[in-house]
C-alpha cells in the first residue's frame, strides 16, 4: 500500500487538515453522481475521525487518572510545532497538538460523521439546490476547524479563523434568496468586521510588543509585564481587542450574526452554528486566555474581570430574548448565544476548576445543541413547520425526534443524566472556588430561564392535542432520525462516560504553570 505509506510520512495534525481538503476536491469531482458524492463525504468524515482519534490515543497515556501522561509542553521532537509555511521571519503557519484543541477536534470530527448522515437526509428530503457546492464548502469548513484546533500560534489561528468565516459564507447564503443573501452579509460583515477591525489589531499589537505569538502555558506577556514595557491598561486594551475581536464567541452586543445565520439549511445551523463555528469562537477565547495572555498575567493586572460581567449579562439577556422567539431555530440560536457565554464566563474566572468547566462545556453543549438543531430540521423536513406555536402534539407523530429533543433540552438546563449537568457542576465549583457570587446568581437565573423557554416546547409537543387541520405526517427520513437519536444518545453517554473530555480537561489543568 504505497498510498498509506505516504500518509504515514505526514504528521497527523497536518493529515487532519488535508483529509477534508482532499475530500472537498473529491466531492467536487464526483458532483455529477450524488450517491458517489455523498459516499465521498461520509468516507472523508470517517477517515478524519480515525485520524483525530489516532492523535488522541497516540498522545494520551492509556492509564486515565494516573500521574501526568504525555506532556504537551515539554519541548521534544514529537511535541515540536509542524511548520507549514513561514511568511515572514517569525510569522509562520504551524500546527501543534494540545489538550484543549484536542477536545475541539474530537467533537467536531465525531459530530461531522453524524451531521453528514443527517445532511444527506435533509438536503435530499428538502430538494435543496447546489448540493455539490454545499458539501464542498462543508468539507472545507471542517478543514478550517481542524486548523483552528491545532494552531500552534495566534497567527495560524487567525488565518484558519478567517478561512472558516469565508468557507461558511456560501453555506449561509446557500438559498440565494434576497433574505438569505442579506443575512449572509450580516454574518460575514460582523465576523470579518470584528476579526479584521479588532482581533487583527490586537494580534499585530501583540507581535509589536512581544515579538512572539506562540501559544504556551503562561502566555507571552510575562516578560514584558515584568520589565515594565507593557503596562496594565495596555494589556487590558489588548484583552478587550481579543475578546470582542473573536466575534464567533457571540459575546453581546456582537451576537447578531448568529440568529442571522439561521437562514442557512439546518445541517449548517446544526454543525456549524451550534458546534464548529461558535465553538471556534469560544475555543479561541479560552485558548487566548490560557495560552496567549496566561491566567497569571491577567490576574496580576486585573484586566480580565470585566469579561465576567459582560458574559453574565450576555447569558441573561440572550435567554430573555430567547423566551420571546416563536421561530424554533431562532430560539435555539439565542440559546446558543447564552450557552456560549457560559464558556466565556467560565474561562474569565481564571481558576483551574473554572477552566475545566469551560473545556467540558465546549463538549457538553456541542452534543446537546446539535441534537436540538437536528430535531428542528427533522420537524421542518417531515412537517414543514418552523414555529413553536405550530408544534402542538407533534411528539406523538415524531416520537424519536421529540424524545431526542427532550434529552437535548435537559442537557441545556443541566439536569442529570445529561452532559450539561457535568459542565454545570464544574462551573458552579469554579464560581464557588473563586468566590464570584455574581456568577452563581447568573447560573441560577439562567437555569430557570433555560427551563422556561425549553420546557414549554416539550410540553406542547407531548401533552397538547394536535390541531384538527393538521396534515398527517410521520417521522423524517431515516438518516435524519438515526443522526438525531445518535447525538441524543451521545448526550446521555457523556454523562456516564465523561472520561475522554475530563482527561483532556485535566491535562489542561496540569499544563498550567
Amino acid at each position, binding site marked *: 500500500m504505497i498510498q498509506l505509506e505516504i500518509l504515514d510520512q505526514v504528521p497527523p495534525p497536518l493529515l487532519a487538515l488535508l483529509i477534508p481538503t482532499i475530500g472537498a476536491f473529491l466531492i467536487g469531482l464526483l458532483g455529477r453522481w450524488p450517491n458517489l458524492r455523498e459516499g465521498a463525504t461520509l468516507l472523508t468524515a470517517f477517515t478524519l475521525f480515525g485520524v483525530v482519534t489516532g492523535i488522541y490515543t497516540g498522545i494520551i497515556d492509556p492509564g486515565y487518572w494516573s500521574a501526568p501522561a504525555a506532556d504537551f509542553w515539554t519541548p521534544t521532537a514529537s511535541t515540536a510545532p509542524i511548520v507549514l509555511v513561514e*511568511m*515572514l521571519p517569525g510569522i509562520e503557519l504551524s500546527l501543534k497538538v494540545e489538550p484543549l484543541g484536542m477536545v475541539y477536534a474530537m467533537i467536531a470530527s465525531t459530530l461531522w460523521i453524524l451531521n453528514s448522515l443527517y445532511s444527506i437526509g435533509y438536503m435530499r428530503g428538502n430538494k435543496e439546490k447546489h448540493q455539490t457546492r454545499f458539501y464542498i464548502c462543508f468539507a472545507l469548513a471542517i478543514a478550517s476547524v481542524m486548523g483552528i484546533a491545532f494552531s500552534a500560534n495566534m497567527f495560524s489561528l487567525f488565518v484558519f479563523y478567517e478561512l472558516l468565516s469565508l468557507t461558511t459564507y456560501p453555506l449561509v447564503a446557500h438559498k440565494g434568496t434576497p433574505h438569505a*443573501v442579506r443575512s449572509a*452579509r450580516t454574518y460575514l460583515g460582523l465576523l*470579518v*468586521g470584528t476579526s479584521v477591525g479588532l482581533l*487583527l*489589531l490586537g494580534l499585530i499589537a501583540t507581535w*509589536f510588543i512581544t515579538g512572539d505569538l506562540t501559544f504556551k502555558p503562561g502566555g507571552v506577556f510575562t516578560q514584558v509585564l515584568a520589565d515594565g514595557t507593557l503596562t496594565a491598561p495596555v494589556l487590558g486594551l489588548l484583552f478587550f481587542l481579543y475578546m470582542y475581536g473573536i466575534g464567533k464567541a457571540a459575546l453581546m452586543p456582537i451576537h447578531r450574526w448568529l440568529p442571522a445565520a439561521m437562514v442557512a439549511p439546518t445541517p449548517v445551523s446544526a454543525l456549524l452554528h451550534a458546534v464548529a463555528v461558535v465553538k471556534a469562537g469560544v475555543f479561541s477565547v479560552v485558548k487566548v486566555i490560557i495560552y496567549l495572555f496566561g491566567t497569571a498575567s491577567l490576574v496580576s493586572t486585573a484586566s480580565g474581570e470585566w469579561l465576567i460581567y459582560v458574559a453574565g449579562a450576555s447569558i441573561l439577556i440572550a435567554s430573555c430574548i430567547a423566551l420571546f422567539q416563536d421561530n424554533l431555530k431562532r430560539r435555539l440560536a439565542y440559546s446558543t448565544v447564552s450557552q456560549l457565554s457560559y464558556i466565556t464566563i467560565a474561562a474569565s474566572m481564571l481558576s483551574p476548576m473554572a477552566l475545566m468547566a469551560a473545556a467540558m462545556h465546549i463538549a457538553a453543549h456541542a452534543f446537546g445543541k446539535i441534537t436540538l438543531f437536528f430535531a428542528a430540521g427533522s420537524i421542518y423536513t417531515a412537517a414543514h413547520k418552523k414555529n413553536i406555536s405550530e408544534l402542538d402534539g407533534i411528539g406523538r407523530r415524531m416520537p424519536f425526534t421529540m424524545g431526542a429533543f427532550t434529552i437535548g433540552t435537559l442537557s441545556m438546563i443541566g439536569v442529570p443524566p445529561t452532559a450539561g449537568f457535568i459542565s454545570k457542576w464544574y462551573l458552579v465549583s469554579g464560581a464557588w472556588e473563586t468566590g464570584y457570587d455574581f456568577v452563581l446568581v447568573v447560573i441560577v437565573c439562567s437555569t430557570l430561564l433555560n427551563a422556561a423557554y425549553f420546557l414549554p416546547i416539550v410540553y406542547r409537543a407531548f401533552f397538547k392535542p394536535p390541531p384538527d387541520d393538521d396534515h398527517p405526517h410521520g417521522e423524517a427520513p431515516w438518516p435524519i432520525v438515526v443522526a438525531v437519536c445518535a447525538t441524543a444518545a451521545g448526550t446521555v453517554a457523556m454523562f456516564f462516560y465523561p472520561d475522554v473530555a475530563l482527561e483532556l480537561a485535566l491535562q489542561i489543568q496540569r499544563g498550567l504553570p
Partner: protein
Amino acid sequence: MIPFNELITDNLPALVVVLPLLGGLLATLVGRFAWLWSTIITGSVFLLTYTLFTAVQAGPGMRYEFGNWPYLWGIEYRIDLLNAFILLVVSGIAFIATIYAKLSVEDEIPADRHNFFYSVWLLAITGLLGITITGDAFNVYVLLEISSLTIYALIAMGKDRDPRALTASLRYLILGSVGASFILLGIGYLLMVTGTLNMADMHAQLMAMPEATQNRTILVAFAFLLVGLSLKMALFPLHTWLPKAYTYAPSAVTAMVAATATKVGVYMAFRFLFTIFGYKFTFVDMPSYHILIICAAVGIIITGLTAIRQTNAKKLLAYSSVGQIGYIVAGFALANPQGVAGSLVHIFNHAAMKGGMFMALGAVAYRVGGTNMKDLRGLGKRMPLTAGCITAGALGLIGFPMTAGFISKWYLVQGALAGGSWLLAFTILFGSLLAVIYSWKMIEAMYFREPEGKTAEATEAPYMLVLPTMALIGLSIYFGINAEFTAGTALKAAAALLPGGVQ
C-alpha cells in the same frame, strides 16, 4: 573598438530608458507587428531592470553619468535598492500588461490606430521608468511630462472614442498639468537656492544651509512640491481626476496606469521628501507628517465609502485605488522603518492585485461588453477563472491572510503602532472593513445572482487575457504566502532611506 557586450553592461542604466524610447518611436514603422515589437521591448526592459536589481541588491548603489559629463553638469542616473525595486515593479507590470493588451486593444481600438497606440504606450513606459531611474531633479520633470502627456492620450482612446473618455482625459490633463507645473516651480525654486539640479548635490547644499527652515524660497518650493506630488499620486482630496480616467480608459491602459503611474508618483514623493529635503527637514521641522497622515486617513475612509456606492465595477476599483494610495502615503509619512517598508511593499502588492483585477474586468468587458455590477451577475459559473481572479484580488484588497494585502497591512499597522498612533492603526483596519463591503458587492453578484443579458451567454475569456491576469493575481498570492523577498527588500530600502540622502 569597444566590445558589444561591454557596451551593453556599461550602459545598462541608460538602456532602460533608451530602449523603450527608441522602441516607441519605431513602433509606428513596424506595421502590424506593433504588438509583438512592444512585447519584445518591454520584455527586454524587464530583463534589464532585473539585472540592475540583482546588481544593486548585492553591492552598494550604481551611478551612471550620461554622456560622461561629470554629474554636477550632466544628467546622472543613480540606482539604489529603492528605485531598482520600483523599476522592477514598473517594468514587470508593463511587460505583463503589454501581453494582455493584444486582444483588448484589437477589441477596443480601431485597427488603423494600433501602431500609434503601441508607440504612445511604450513612450508612457519610457517616462515612468525614466522618472524612477534618474538622479536629476529637472530630468524628473521632463520625463514626468513625457509620461503624463502619453497617458492623457492613452486614456482618450477609450472604447469607441467614448466622449466620457475624452472628458475624463481632459480633466486629467488640466489637473495633471497643474500638478506638473507645481513640481516644476518647486524644482525651479530649489535650483535658485542650491544652484544645482542633481538630487544628491541638492540635498548636500540644503544640509549645508543652517537656516533652511527660515528660508522662504525653500519653504515655498517645499509647499509647491508637496501639493504637486499629491496631485500626481492622487492623494485625497486631490484625486478627483482619477476615478473617471480609470473608468473610461481602454482596459489595458487602466490596468497598466493603475498599477504603475500613481506608484511612480509615490516614488517621486519618496525622492523629494526623503532624498532631497531629507528626513529631518520633512518630518521634524515641517508639519508634513500631520498633513499627509490626515489626508491619507480621511481619504481611506471617504473613498472607501464612495466605492461602496458605485455601480460600475471599474469605478469602484478606481475609488479603491485612491484609498490604497492613502495606505501608501500613511506608511511613508510615519517615517519609521515598519511604516516605510509597509508603504514600499504595498506599492508592489497593490500594483499586482489592482493590475490583475483591472485586467480581469477588462476580460469581462471583452466578453460581456461592460463592467457594471449587473454585467458581473452569475459570472462565477460563466467565466470561472476571471471571477476567481477578481475574488482573489478582492481578498487581497481586504488584506485577507495569505494574500499580499495582508503583508502590507501587517507592516503598516506596526508602523502606526510604532508611531504611537492607535487611531491610525484602527483607521487602516477600518479601511479593510470598507474593502470587505465593496468587494463583497462584486463577489455576491458573481456567485449568488443569476446571469442576465449578455452575461448569460458569456464563456471564459481567451487565454491571452486570462493568463496575464492570473500571473499578476498569482504573484499577489505568492508574495502573500512567502513575503521574504518583497518584505525583505522593502525593509532594506526603508532603512537606507530613513537617515536621509542618496547612498
